[in-house]
């Protein structure tokens, strides 16, 4: 989680986003909750998450939603 974040060169960042933009990433993050992603998908997803705050937040938001659902169902005791 708290890996030191090295600022990647612009060209590398561009290549990563070109292969997988935020919209594609949101699809993968969502699908990750339902199905195992392919190795290639996981690879580009990890790279993208490394450089993109918004998508990292999105991935985290999805986990919160899952936890909230469980919490909501079990709230009696």
């Amino acid at each position, binding site marked *: 989680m708290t890996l030191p974040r090295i600022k990647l060169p612009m060209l590398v960042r561009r290549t990563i986003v070109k292969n997988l933009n935020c919209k594609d990433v949101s699809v993968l993050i*969502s699908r990750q909750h339902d199905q195992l992603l392919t190795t290639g998908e996981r690879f580009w997803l990890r790279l993208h998450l490394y450089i993109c705050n918004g998508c990292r937040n999105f991935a985290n938001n999805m986990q919160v939603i899952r936890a909230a659902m469980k919490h909501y169902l079990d709230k009696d005791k």
Partner: protein
Amino acid sequence: MNSEASPEAISTASIESHRNYLLRYALLQLRDQGAAEDAVQDTLLAALQGAARFSGKSSLKTWLTGILKHKIIDQMRRQSREQPLVSGDDEGSESEAVDALFLEDGHWRQPPSNWGDPDKALENKAFIEVFEQCAKNMPAKTARAFMMREVMELSTDEICKELEISTTNCWVMLHRARLSLRECLELKWFGKQS
């Protein structure tokens, strides 16, 4: 016979104690008080009649939930027979609704924010109310698929089959559902906290 390992005794009282949980579960999926109550009532009845089949290998709650799932599916089939969800307002526009959240180059129009420590929100009663409201506000069809996945924990294959939709459509629906629930929580809760 080891008395310590004896299964949880089934009595009307022990079954009844799970009623609220079962009702919340059914209501998330069915979104109709009457249908949810029917499903729960059928479940409790079936549980009492079939008490002998409860092996004690799983918890009573898990066993009851298993029965409830079947009763919910029955109710869903009844619902779609009696009043099919009107297509139009939230169908076809599924992928458009997703597209609307992104710029043309695929960047977020409004990047998701950091929600901080989720436990803090989960402990807050007001958050749970907002969550319930946001879940209720989800478009009907997407919500149905989403709850089948997140509440009933069915596989996407099972969901596609039950809803008679294509796999692709199923993915889009689940994605849209998550995006719309997220938007609502961001707007009504997390955006207001900081």
